[in-house]
């Protein structure tokens, strides 16, 4: 039997055929491995791939990004831009890529607060992009409003005097209490504020002052909340025009609130509050997505805290 006949006769073993097939298989394997090696991501290349206009330390500057940048920079369709203009844009993009790579090389995000803030903002924007683009339905808005109705009212505004019977003792003595009670009674009887202040030696507490004088201008309710302790704040809220609070004891003495004018908060209808409801719904959705993202990041992170902060 001729050698070539023996090679093709698969009913009989042939060393030559075995070696040939082995060599063929090895060559195919090498070819596939070589292709994978030279086309895989991260492979060093000296040729610019067709989808890129440049490689900067093996990072591509995409042709489409380059064309868009050129159009934007020169406000012209890409086809109408000159070679010079394109070259300028390309150089700028290469420079930018170099700077970004340098920033990563020196680990800028680890210590530069601006870069860190930009990264945080960028990630948050990416995470909340869907929420920002979503349209809450009228039903969702209405449901949110009904559930948070107490949030939607006009801000209360008042004009008042926070008067104080000073006391060096802490807690203030009985004399201070008696003076405050008498002053409140006098005001309720209709005596003028100035007369009562003078008669009972009251002073302004100093919490509502404007250029050294008592500020009797408009004060928003939220501002009042920031300036008064809780007991005094609660005593102030129900007062109507011309009313006086009961004495409230604090460390510096006994306080009396004389309400000059009080515009109470007015509940807003859904229609009146719709703009704010819209904003709040969006904000709440963003907060939820942000929290979920942080929970996910924490779940896969290895965070070790100092013993004194361990939960």
């Amino acid at each position: 039997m001729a050698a070539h006949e023996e090679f093709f006769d698969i009913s009989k073993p042939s060393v030559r055929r075995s070696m040939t097939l082995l060599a063929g298989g090895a060559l195919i394997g090498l070819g596939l491995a070589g292709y994978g090696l030279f086309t895989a991501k991260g492979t060093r290349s000296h040729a610019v791939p067709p989808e890129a206009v440049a490689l900067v330390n093996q990072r591509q500057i995409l042709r489409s990004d380059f064309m868009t940048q050129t159009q934007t920079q020169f406000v012209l369709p890409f086809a109408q831009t000159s070679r010079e203009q394109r070259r300028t844009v390309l150089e700028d993009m290469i420079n930018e890529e170099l700077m970004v790579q340098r920033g990563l090389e020196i680990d800028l995000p680890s210590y530069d607060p601006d870069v860190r803030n930009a990264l945080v903002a960028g990630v948050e924007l990416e995470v909340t992009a869907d929420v920002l683009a979503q349209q809450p339905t009228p039903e969702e808005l209405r449901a949110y409003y009904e559930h948070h109705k107490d949030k939607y009212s006009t801000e209360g505004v008042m004009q008042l005097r926070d008067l104080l019977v000073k006391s060096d003792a802490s807690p203030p003595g009985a004399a201070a209490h008696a003076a405050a009670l008498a002053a409140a009674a006098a005001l309720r009887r209709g005596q003028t504020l100035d007369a009562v202040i003078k008669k009972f030696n009251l002073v302004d507490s100093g919490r509502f002052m404007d250029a050294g004088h008592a500020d009797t201008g408009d004060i928003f309710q939220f501002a009042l909340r920031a300036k008064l302790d809780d007991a005094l704040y609660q005593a102030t809220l129900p007062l109507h025009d011309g009313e006086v609070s009961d004495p409230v004891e604090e460390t510096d003495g006994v306080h009396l609130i004389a309400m000059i004018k009080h515009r109470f908060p007015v509940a807003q209808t859904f229609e009146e509050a719709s703009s704010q409801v819209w904003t709040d719904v969006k904000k709440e959705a963003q907060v939820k997505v942000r929290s979920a993202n942080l929970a996910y990041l924490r779940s896969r992170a290895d965070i070790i805290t100092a013993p004194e902060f361990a939960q």
Partner: protein
Amino acid sequence: MTRRRLAGLALVLLGIFAIVAWTHRRHVAGELLRTEPDQILKSPALLREAMRIGRPQYQGHCQSCHGAALEGDPARGVPNLAGNVWLYGNDPVDVERTILYGIRSGHPKSRNIADMPALVRTGQIAPDDARDAVEYLQSLAGRPYDKPAALRGRSIYFGKGNCYDCHANDAKGVTDYGTPALSGPTWIYGGDRESLYQSIVNGRHGMCPAWVDVLTPVQIRALALYLVATSALPRVSIVRH
């Protein structure tokens, strides 16, 4: 024996053919990416290749929303791509960018400069103002309209509605922002009174996914060229402001 030789020869020829075809395709892909999109539109051979690669991409990824004939769907706010009315410009470079990064897709490079605000729901204008603005738009579109309402609508357009700021003084839209023309004849969400009213009341936030991580660069380029070439009307110049 001769048959076996022939079979071997056929196999070898098939292999050579496959290699040549693969090399050719890579070469064509390179050509499509390296050649300027405008030049490809003028080159029948390259355009044919672009259409060959782009058509199945359209059918596989875009057709479910934009329709088999690129006709769009006003009920869902899917733009008609066959009318050569392009929100972000009809230059193939602009179309390619939209395909790459999408519109409000969540990709940092997506087109996301402006949204149509819900002018009534946010309290910027009243429902009656919106009705008047609709009449003004009807007048721009050359349709029957209520004249006094359209006059009031005009002052809404240029006043508290602030519509002119995005849609331009002539209501022809601005491709830089992706804002549509409000003078017809093409309407993304429908040009009838009720559709326009709903757009003003509730706002619009159309989106298109980013395909940058799904399709290859050559598929995206080919798809952009396929879309531009398939659009029925002659190309118009880009409007930039």
